C-alpha cells in the first residue's frame, strides 16, 4: 500500500508532544538542504529549543546526482532542554531523492520505522530507469516499515519558480515548520536573515516558497509534533566549532594566522580571513604547512603570539617547527582540527587520533601545553586561553578540536567582550642591562622574552641547545638546565589548574573518562544509566598536558575506570590481543602511566560521532563485569 498523507483536508490532531526529535534534510549537493537545515535549527533555537545540527557532507565535491554516496544536508537534533551532542538515529527525514535517502538508510543513520518525507517527482520521471529506481526504493522502504509520505515538492515549487531544484529547500522548510509547529513569523524572519545579503527579489521568492510549504502542509499533512521550548532571554550565537575557533582567534587579540588549506580545518580560516583583516589582522595562506608554521613562528618571535590552523597531515608537517618554538621558547598557538588518520585517512570524518602525537610529537623532549575544547562554546574560549598561556609560559599551546566540533552547529550564549582577552601591545621597552634572554626562574622555569625592537635585548635565539644567554652550549649542565626549565613550566601551570569536576556522584562503580568532542555524548549516557540506578559518573579533561591535579584521587573512588575515546584501541577479546599485546587508547595510556590505575578503554573509530547509545552499551557491559567481580 502506498501510505501517503495526501488528503485534501487532513484532520489535524493535537500535536504529539515529544522530548526530542532528530530531523534530517538531505539532497544532492547544490540543492540547498544544508541551508534548509541551518534555518530550521536557527528558528527552533530562537524559540528556545535545544538544537544540535551536524552537516552531512558527501566525500566528493560534486558527486553524481541521485547517488547513494551523494547525500548532502543537515541533521538537526531538536530537544526540549539543553542539547550537548548529536544524539542517536534520525526520527524524521525529508529527502529530495530516494537515492540519497537510500545512502542514509544503508549508513544506519535512520531509526527503524522512522518518518520519511520523500520528493515524489521521480515517480513519473521521463527516464524509465529513474522512475523504476524510485518505485523500487519507495516500495522497499514501505515494506521495511518506514512511514513514507510522498511529497510533490517539485510540482508545487514549479508553480512559483523557474528552477524548482533551487527552491525546494525553502518549501521543505515550510513543511518542517508546520510539522513542528514553529513560529511562522520567526521562520519568515530567519529566511530573510539567511538571504539577507541577496537582493530583495531573492528574499521574497524564498519567503513565497516557505509559505507554499507551510500551506501545503496545512492542507495535506496530518503530522504534528511539538517539542516544548523554554523561551530564551539572552542573545545566542548559532555557530559551529570552526567559526568558534576563528572568533576566538579574533577575540584573543592575535594578529597573524598562517595556514594551508586542509579539511576539516579550512573553514575556520575561510571565515577568519575577512573578519580578521577588518581589525588589522592577516590570514596568510602559505605554500605548505611547514611554511605556515615557520611563518607563524616568525610573526610570534617579532610580535604578538600567532596561530597556525591545520589538521592531521598538516600537523605532522609542522612538527619540526613546533620543536623549534619549544626549544627557543617562542609562544605559538597551533590548532589541530583532527580528522581520521593515519596518512590522508578520512578527511571529512571524525576521529580523536592525534592526542599522543600532540603530546609526544616533535623529536626529543618537547613539552607543550595541550587543550581540548569539548563543545563549540569551548572552542571559542580555548583559543583565548591558548594565546594567553602561550605568551605567559613562552610555550607552544596546541588546541585539539575535531571534525565533530568543526561541523556541529549549535546555539551558544553570546560572549560579552572582555578586554582581558586581548594580547597586550608588543613590549618595546628597554631591557635592563645584564638581563639574560633566558632568565629561567629556578622554580617555575619562566623567563621574560625579549622582542626585536627592545633596546638592549639583542640576542640570537636558536633551536640548538643553549644557555641562559642564548649562547649555543653543548655542555651537560647547560643542556639539563634548559630541559629542566622547559619541563618546569608545565609543572608550574599544572599547579594553577583546578581538579576537574565529576559529572555525577564522586564515587561509584564506574567512572568514564573522556576528552574533547565526546563530552556531551558521554554525559548523556551517564545520565541515562544513572536514571536506571547505576553508580556511574564521568570525568572530562580540558587540559591534556599538563593535566589538572587530583585526577588519580578522583579515579580511586570508583571501582573501575573506562576511557571513552574516538581513537583506536585493541579490543581486549580479539585474537592475539592480551595483556601484553593490547594497545590502549590514547587517554587510557596517558592516565595509566600517570596514575598506575588499571584503566580500561573503549572506543569507536567509525568516522561518525560516538552516540550516547553506544556508550550506554559499552558502559553497561563494563558495569556487568563489575557486578560479576562482586559475586
Amino acid at each position, binding site marked *: 500500500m502506498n501510505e501517503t498523507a495526501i488528503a485534501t483536508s487532513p484532520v489535524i490532531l493535537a500535536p504529539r508532544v515529544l522530548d526530542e526529535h532528530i530531523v534530517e534534510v538531505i539532497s544532492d549537493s547544490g540543492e540547498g538542504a544544508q541551508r534548509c537545515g541551518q534555518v530550521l535549527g536557527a528558528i527552533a533555537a530562537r524559540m528556545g529549543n535545544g538544537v544540535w545540527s551536524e552537516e552531512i557532507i558527501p566525500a566528493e565535491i560534486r558527486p553524481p546526482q541521485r547517488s547513494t554516496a551523494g547525500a548532502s544536508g543537515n541533521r538537526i537534533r531538536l530537544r526540549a532542554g539543553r542539547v550537548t551532542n548529536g544524539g542517536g538515529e534520525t526520527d524524521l527525514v525529508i529527502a529530495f531523492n530516494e537515492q540519497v535517502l537510500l545512502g542514509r538508510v544503508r549508513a544506519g543513520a535512520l531509526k527503524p520505522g522512522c518518518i520519511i518525507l520523500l520528493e515524489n517527482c521521480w515517480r513519473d520521471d521521463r527516464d524509465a530507469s529513474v522512475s523504476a529506481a524510485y518505485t523500487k526504493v519507495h516500495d522497499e522502504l514501505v515494506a521495511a516499515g518506514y512511514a513514507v509520505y510522498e511529497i510533490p515538492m517539485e510540482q508545487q515549487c514549479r508553480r512559483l519558480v523557474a528552477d524548482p531544484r533551487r527552491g525546494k529547500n525553502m518549501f521543505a522548510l515550510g513543511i518542517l515548520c508546520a510539522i513542528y509547529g514553529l513560529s511562522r513569523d520567526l521562520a519568515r524572519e530567519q529566511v530573510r536573515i539567511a538571504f539577507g545579503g541577496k537582493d530583495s527579489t531573492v528574499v521574497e521568492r524564498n519567503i513565497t516558497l516557505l509559505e507554499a510549504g507551510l500551506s501545503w502542509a496545512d492542507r495535506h499533512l496530518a503530522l504534528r509534533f511539538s517539542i516544548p521550548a523554554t523561551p530564551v532571554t539572552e542573545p545566542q550565537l548559532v555557530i559551529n566549532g570552526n567559526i568558534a575557533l576563528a572568533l576566538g582567534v579574533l577575540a584573543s587579540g592575535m594578529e597573524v594566522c598562517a595556514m594551508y588549506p586542509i579539511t576539516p580545518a579550512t573553514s575556520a580560516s575561510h571565515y577568519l580571513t575577512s573578519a580578521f583583516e577588518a581589525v588589522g589582522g592577516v590570514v596568510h595562506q602559505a605554500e605548505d604547512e611547514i611554511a605556515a608554521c615557520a611563518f607563524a613562528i616568525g610573526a610570534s618571535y617579532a610580535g604578538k603570539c600567532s596561530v597556525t590552523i591545520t589538521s592531521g597531515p598538516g600537523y605532522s608537517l609542522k612538527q619540526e617547527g613546533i620543536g623549534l618554538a619549544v626549544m627557543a621558547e617562542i609562544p605559538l598557538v597551533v590548532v589541530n582540527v583532527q580528522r581520521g588518520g593515519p596518512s590522508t585517512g578520512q578527511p571529512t570524518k571524525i576521529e580523536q587520533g592525534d592526542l599522543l602525537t600532540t603530546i609526544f610529537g616533535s623529536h626529543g623532549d618537547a613539552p607543550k601545553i595541550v587543550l581540548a575544547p569539548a563543545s563549540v562554546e569551548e572552542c571559542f574560549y580555548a583559543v583565548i586561553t591558548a594565546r594567553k598561556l602561550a605568551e605567559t609560559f613562552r610555550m607552544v599551546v596546541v588546541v585539539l578540536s575535531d571534525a565533530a566540533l568543526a561541523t556541529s552547529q549549535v546555539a551558544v550564549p553570546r560572549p560579552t*567582550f572582555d578586554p582581558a582577552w586581548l594580547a597586550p601591545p608588543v613590549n618595546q621597552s628597554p631591557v635592563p642591562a645584564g638581563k639574560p634572554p633566558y632568565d629561567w626562574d629556578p622554580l617555575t622555569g619562566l623567563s621574560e622574552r625579549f622582542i626585536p625592537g627592545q633596546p638592549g635585548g639583542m640576542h640570537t635565539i636558536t633551536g640548538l641547545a643553549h644557555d641562559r644567554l642564548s649562547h649555543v652550549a653543548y655542555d651537560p649542565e647547560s643542556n639539563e638546565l634548559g630541559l629542566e626549565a622547559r619541563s618546569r613550566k608545565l609543572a608550574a601551570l599544572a599547579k594553577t589548574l583546578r581538579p576537574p569536576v565529576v559529572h555525577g556522584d564522586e564515587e561509584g562503580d564506574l567512572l568514564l573518562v573522556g576528552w574533547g568532542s565526546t563530552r556531551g555524548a558521554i554525559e548523556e549516557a551517564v545520565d541515562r544509566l544513572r536514571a536506571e540506578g547505576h553508580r556511574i559518573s564521568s570525568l572530562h579533561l580540558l587540559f591534556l598536558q599538563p593535566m589538572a591535579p587530583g585526577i588519580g584521587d578522583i579515579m580511586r573512588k570508583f571501582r573501575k575506570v573506562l576511557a571513552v575515546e574516538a581513537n583506536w584501541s585493541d579490543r581486549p577479546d580479539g585474537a592475539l590481543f592480551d595483556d601484553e599485546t593490547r594497545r590502549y587508547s590514547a587517554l587510557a595510556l596517558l592516565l595509566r602511566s600517570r596514575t598506575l590505575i588499571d584503566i580500561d578503554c573503549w572506543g569507536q573509530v567509525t568516522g561518525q560521532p560516538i552516540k550516547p547509545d553506544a556508550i550506554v552499551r559499552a558502559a553497561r557491559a563494563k558495569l556487568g563485569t563489575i557486578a560479576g567481580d562482586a559475586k
Partner: protein
Amino acid sequence: MSEATLCLLRLADEQHSLEDYQSGVPRWCPGCGDNAILSAVQRLCRDEGLRPEKTVFISGIGCSSRFPHYMKTYGLHGIHGRALPIAEGVRMARRDLDVFVNTGDGDCCSIGAAHWIHAIRYNMNLTVMLHDNEIYGLTKKQASPTSPKGLRSNTTPGGAWLEALNPVQVTLGVQNASFVAQVVDWIPELLYDVLHRAWKHRGFSFVHIVQRCPEWLPNQFEPFVRDPSKVALVHHERGLSISPSLAKVYRNQIQHDPRDIDGARKIASQRDPIPVGILYHDPSVPCYEDLRRGNQPPHSAALVKKGLEKQFDKFTIWPQTAEAAD
C-alpha cells in the same frame, strides 16, 4: 634634560661603530668565505646606522646559518630550510624592522626550495644572502644542488651525477623577482656595494654569493680567485658603477641595464667567467606585506572589539520578540 640635549644624545647614540654589531668570535674555518660576508654586513650596518635592536637576522641550518650569532642584533637561528618563511612572518608582524636572511645552498636550494620559489613571489622586503659554497659544509661534504656535475663528495665519490642548479637563473625565472644579484666573497668592495644596493631595495633582494669553503673544496674557486679575467663585472648607470681601481683589475666587463630581464637571464646562464653585479632590479614590484597591511588600520583593542561585535551580530539569534511570537 631639554629636548635639544636629548636629541643630541640620541644622535650620538646613533653614531655606531663596527663593534656595535659584532658578537663573539666567528667559528668558521680560517679562509671561509662566510667571514668576508660577515665583515661586509657589519660595515653596511655601521655605515647606514642600522639600529641594532631594530635589525634582525634570520637563518636556517648550516655553517652559513651561524651568521646571526655573530651579529649584535636580534637574530633567529632556525631550522634547516625554513629561514625564508620565518623571515616572512617577522616582516608581516613588523614592518618597522630591517630583516636579513642568511641561507646556504642546501638550506635554500634543496630542503627549502619550495619556500625560496614562493618567497620570490611574495617579494617581501628582505635582504637575502645565499652563501653558495657548492657543498654541504656543516654535515661534512655532501653534494648540494649547486655542486657542479662531476664534483666528488662523500655522497658522490665518483662525481656528482647531475648538472648543477643555477640559483640566479631560477630566481630570474619566477614571477615577481625584483632584485637579483651575484657576487663573490673574494672581492670585498663589490660584495659590500652589492649588499648595500640589495638592502636599499624595498622587496625581496636576492644576493647569490659565491662562497669559498677551504675545508671541503679548497680548490673549487681558486682559478677564479687567481685569474681576474674569470670574473665579469656587470655594471650600468642604473646598476653598479665600478671604481677605477676595480676596473683596472677586472677588465672583463659587461654593460647591462638591470631593468632588462632577458639580458639578465642571458648573463645569469654564464658560469665562466662568473658574472658579478646587479643582474636585475625592478623597484615597482609591490611587497606582499604592503599589499596585505599597507592600507590596514592598525590592530587595536577598540578595533577588535568593534570587529568582534560585528561578527557576533552576524551569528546572533535574538530572543523571540513579543510581536514575532504567534
